[in-house]
């Protein structure tokens, strides 16, 4: 294990009603979060490859946990997203090193496919920082019903020398989608966009 993990947290949200209408089947999303030590806290380091390797490891760990929390097989997931919050002694580039070079491949391996870009967000912040994880359809980024987000936070993280890394997975889009656009049954799935 490359990452020094202090704690995990998972969140599963299930929406059964919205504006007093039944949501059927319920809209469900899950996020898995790891709080890890930032090996580069407090110093400028040019080569961030250690964090890239940690990202690869967390991509698999967190996606597996999120899918298990939803109770679905990986390929049944519909949308996904990722995010990281760096504690105050780190830099935004540390979040970028975890999220962008290597985290996506194992996410897609666990989910079977994933032609679309994994939407992401990052920030630096203190304990209890709220991460809004952007969500998009995993095989076609333009599916409008699946543009969504999920909020996560952990009251005691990230500490100054930590990084909080999150992967979110859903088995549905928004609860009552009705703003048109590409629908999931129209996906061609060739270019990750439509």
């Amino acid at each position, binding site marked *: 294990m490359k990452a020094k993990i*202090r704690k995990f947290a998972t969140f*599963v949200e299930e929406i059964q009603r919205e504006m007093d209408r039944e949501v059927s089947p319920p809209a469900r999303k899950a996020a898995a979060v790891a709080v890890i030590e930032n090996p580069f806290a407090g110093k400028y380091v040019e080569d961030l490859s250690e964090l890239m390797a940690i990202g690869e490891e967390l991509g698999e760990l967190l996606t597996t946990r999120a899918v298990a929390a939803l109770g679905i097989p990986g390929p049944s997931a519909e949308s996904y997203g990722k995010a990281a919050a760096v504690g105050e002694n780190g830099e935004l580039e540390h979040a970028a090193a975890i999220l962008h070079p290597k985290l996506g491949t194992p996410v897609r391996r666990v989910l079977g496919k994933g032609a679309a870009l994994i939407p992401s967000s990052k920030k630096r912040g203190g304990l209890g920082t709220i991460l809004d994880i952007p969500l998009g359809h995993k095989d076609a980024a333009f599916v409008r019903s699946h543009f969504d987000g999920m909020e996560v936070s952990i009251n005691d993280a990230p500490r100054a020398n930590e990084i909080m890394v999150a992967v979110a997975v859903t088995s549905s889009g928004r609860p009552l989608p009705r703003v048109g656009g590409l629908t999931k049954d129209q996906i061609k799935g060739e270019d990750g966009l439509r």
Partner: protein
Amino acid sequence: MPDVVVRKKLTCVEEIFHEGGPVAAKSLRRAAALVVIRNPFAGLYVANIESFMDDLKPLGLEMARTLVTALGGDPKVVEGYGKGAIVGSAGELEHGALWHVPGGYAMREVLGGAKAIVASTKKVGGPGTRLDIPITHINASYVRSHFDAMEIGINDAPRADEILLALVMTTGARVHARVGGLKASEIKGEDGLR
């Protein structure tokens, strides 16, 4: 008798390996089950509200079972518990007090007759209100290593006419517990206190 109308659910699980000290031989897990329901008494003063406690019992049992499942499925691993409620702005604190009996009954039932009083807290608040749910040992309130708390909340709940209900279970002591007092191994288990 008013119906229990559920809008959404959120289940959160934390798994804690260390907090700056040695990595624990057995990680601590804390789970919270949150359910957002319509407040049948929102906007009015109703003198007789007691019967709603019975209406909430099946929901309490479902939430307690959700927690045991989230912690691996064996009720024997559960060592701590707590409960709480957040009442939306069109309700009163007394509506939150309706949760004491069904929430406590449900956890005792599912855990096979836990002896200690279930620690609790409640408040009136808007969407995104956070609640620190107190946690104590399930069989002896004075076990000092198990005094703990878990922060919960949902960004879009409770709305004015809703109540957010919460149950919490944990699998052990604080991860680096070392302030003495009654130990779990010293419980007599007669009065729910020691």
